[in-house]
């Protein structure tokens, strides 16, 4: 089928294959740590192994979008005409582990829009088990491609065309394809990538993140045990955030109230906190050095090659819109204002409301993309949505096993206006003054100037 059927809302009617939300995929694979005895299920809906379908459905779906987008021409104000999607971009890098066929998995990407002066980066799927964080960036790409009309007839279509003519949007839905595949076939709780790092017996002296109003913690001495290969670095602790940031790579951090405690670390230099680490300490290892991971390197290289003016990195869960602490510390009214504006737009969707809060209000960590982006592009909005579910006890099972498919679309809807607003804000440098008055005329005229996010209030797909 060259073009998949569309749903009434205009999106592609596509099974969420790479999220494995349907019964077969969800139940047929090993959700926990046991292959044989715990969840032995047999495919009842069709052939093929789960892993290849999981990854390559995303690859295939993005290829489909690229194909559709490349046939849509964008006519800019200057009169030139170019394809909506740049088909020369299909990935930004590869991960370390081979799939069932022995091929390295790719960090698939789609580049759309022709406004190269105002670039926006959208990422998802840093943490393997956070499946819905892959879905939102993908659906955004799909929404923009399918709703682009070079001859728009409605205000909504004109607004979408405006974004795609004046912005260039890079979308990388799944930064961690190896980890994601591992959550499907082996361990539903897996968080990190699948890097295998040999560490010789040694002592690591780990600096501790200083928190405002709290006493400084002395560096921690970690005695790494006998030579082992440690599996799984947290990509979102590996970005090379500099010491100019308040959250530089490599400083250990703790969940508030658990400072200095073994299970309280949210950023760890101890290799034993790798993906194979046990219980509540698993999966927050920084890696041995900043930017050591292929996945982080791919994102950093993309950022080195493109001066992004806004970035958003999807995660789950909490229902917050996080912005960098440094934006607040540096009194960056624009970046903080955009985050709060996005929260207002999100609220106007009348679904779940995400509060705009600084990153450390959830918990402090270092080497993550939120702070790295702000470190690299100071003054530019950097946002990390923690999407559904919220953290209420009623959502216990969702937090563990992921959102049901029935909630994915609403999650997208409540995030859509906010991300469109961010894309729009990439073209701005400051908050609106509120009113603009002409004083030259004999009768001065004032008009209300809206902020960059406000046109997306109440936005529906």
């Amino acid at each position, binding site marked *: 089928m060259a073009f998949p059927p569309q749903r009434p809302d205009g999106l592609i009617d596509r099974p969420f294959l790479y999220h494995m939300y349907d*019964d*077969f995929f969800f*139940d*047929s694979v090993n*959700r*926990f*740590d*046991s*292959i*044989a*005895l*715990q*969840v*032995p*299920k*047999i*495919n*009842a*809906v069709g*052939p093929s*192994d789960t892993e290849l379908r999981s990854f390559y459905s995303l690859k295939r779906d993005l290829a489909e979008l690229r194909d559709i987008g490349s046939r849509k021409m964008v006519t800019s104000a200057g009169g030139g005409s170019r394809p909506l999607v740049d088909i020369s971009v299909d990935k930004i890098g590869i991960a370390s582990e*081979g*799939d*069932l066929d*022995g091929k390295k998995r790719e960090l698939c990407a789609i580049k759309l829009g022709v406004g190269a002066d105002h670039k926006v980066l959208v990422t998802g799927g840093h943490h393997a*088990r956070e499946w819905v964080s892959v879905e939102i960036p993908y659906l955004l790409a799909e929404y923009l491609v399918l709703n682009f009309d070079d001859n728009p007839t409605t205000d909504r279509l004109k607004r979408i065309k405006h974004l795609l003519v004046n912005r260039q949007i890079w979308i990388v839905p799944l930064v961690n394809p190896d980890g994601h595949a591992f959550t499907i*076939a082996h361990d539903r*709780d897996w*968080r990190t990538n699948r890097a*295998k790092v*040999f560490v010789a017996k040694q002592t690591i002296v780990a600096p501790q993140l200083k928190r405002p109003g709290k006493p400084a913690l002395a560096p921690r001495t970690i005695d790494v045990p006998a*030579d*082992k*290969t*440690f599996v799984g670095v947290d990509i979102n602790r590996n970005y090379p955030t500099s010491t100019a940031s308040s959250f530089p790579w490599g400083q250990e951090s703790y*969940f508030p*109230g*658990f400072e200095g405690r*073994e*299970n309280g670390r*949210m950023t760890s230099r101890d*290799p*034993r906190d*790798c993906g*194979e*680490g*046990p*219980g*509540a*300490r*698993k*999966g927050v290892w920084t890696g041995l050095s900043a930017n050591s991971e292929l996945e982080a390197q791919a994102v950093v290289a993309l950022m080195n090659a493109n001066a992004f003016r806004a970035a958003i990195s999807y995660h789950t*869960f909490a229902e917050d819109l996080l912005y960098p602490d440094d934006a607040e510390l540096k009194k960056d009214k624009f970046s903080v204002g955009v985050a709060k504006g996005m929260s207002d737009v999100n609220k106007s969707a009348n679904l779940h409301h995400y509060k705009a809060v600084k990153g450390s209000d*959830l*918990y402090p960590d270092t080497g993550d993309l939120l702070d790295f982006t702000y470190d690299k592009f100071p003054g530019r909005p950097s946002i990390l949505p923690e999407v559904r579910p919220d*953290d209420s006890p009623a959502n*216990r*099972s969702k*937090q*563990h096993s992921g959102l049901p498919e029935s909630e994915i679309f609403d999650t997208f809807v409540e995030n859509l206006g906010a991300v469109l607003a961010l894309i729009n804000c990439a073209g701005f440098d400051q908050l609106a003054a509120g009113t603009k008055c002409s004083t030259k005329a004999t009768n001065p005229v004032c008009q209300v100037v809206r902020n960059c996010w406000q046109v997306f209030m109440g936005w529906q797909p």
Partner: protein
Amino acid sequence: MDGGSGRAIGASAAVSERVAIAGSQSPALTLPHERLGADQGMAWFGVADAQLTAMWAVDRSVQLIYFSRAAYDAAMAQLTPAEQSAAIAYRRTRFVAVTQALSHAFGRRVDALAPAAQAGRREIFDRALALLARWFGKRRFERAQPAFLLTRLVEREARLGCELAAAGSAEQAALSESQAHQLAEALARHGSPEYARALPYVGLERGVRIEPGADLAALLEVHHEPHVLIDGALFAPWSLDALPSLRDEGRSATVIYGGRAGLVRAFDGTEPQSRRDLLARVAFAARAPAAPVDEHLINLRVEQSLFKRWTAAAVADTDRALAGDLATQIAAGASGLHDALAASPPASDPDAQLRALDAGLRNDLALFSTMARVQGSSALAADTAELAAQVAAEEPL
């Protein structure tokens, strides 16, 4: 709402083997069944296989929700009628019989491993393992490259070795470690040298009840770790290494599952069901403190046995040396597993258990064949037919 009345409606009650659900006005309910409950326009009931087949002839929407009456009884035990209705509603959101039928069927061969070993029936034990390897691996790893399977195999063998060492089985741990090194070298030959220098680190964890534990819940939430609080006690996976520090803080820390999987499965139900199952597990662990870890070790050994068979199949034609090494490891692993199971006390007459499991499997396959046809699942129909043919060709257990 009417939970657990046990009254029959329609025609006279029959022996119920399965539990199904239908709309309260379904014509299927005129056929013999044992009414178990009703809520929100649905009625659930126990029903014999023959009657269920007859029900499908008049109403295809009748849904099987428990494969056995015993499983239903266990799921509903100690629940009030309102809690039973909630449990049924939850079950309907989680359970699709068509997708889980075959695994239930050959799960009976998993269950046969222990009584086969206890009865000294090694040929049945080996036959069951072979069948499991074939069916668990079906469509999952058949096309996998050896390096992919070997990577998993090394990681799992390393885990098994660490678990054996932690359990005090030094000799078996050493054997496991040497096998892991052998596999790591093979993996390097297949182009992935990551484990040739050193085996993967394994952090052991246990499913634990911690009291007091309420103050730890926030930490687990932010780590996305599954956990439940019951009367101030926390049930969660916890690092084996970190258990002493919990006790140093004045908390009790009781191991109730050897690994995370069993604990998390206990969370998969309504709150009253989880509470009941977890408290029962605490009582079990109090009676037999070593049992949770023993059980976990058995699971790991079965899984590893299957993984090695899949890998051996994948390299049979391309790496004779590895195939030979794996054959040796498989034989040693099967013997070790057999001996470990044989040493465990039988729950009842093992020969009678084997006969019941075998009959159950054959009944399952007959019913699932019908269900596949009624519900239009050609894949299940094909798989059921293939498995049935395989089982029919075997001597009864």
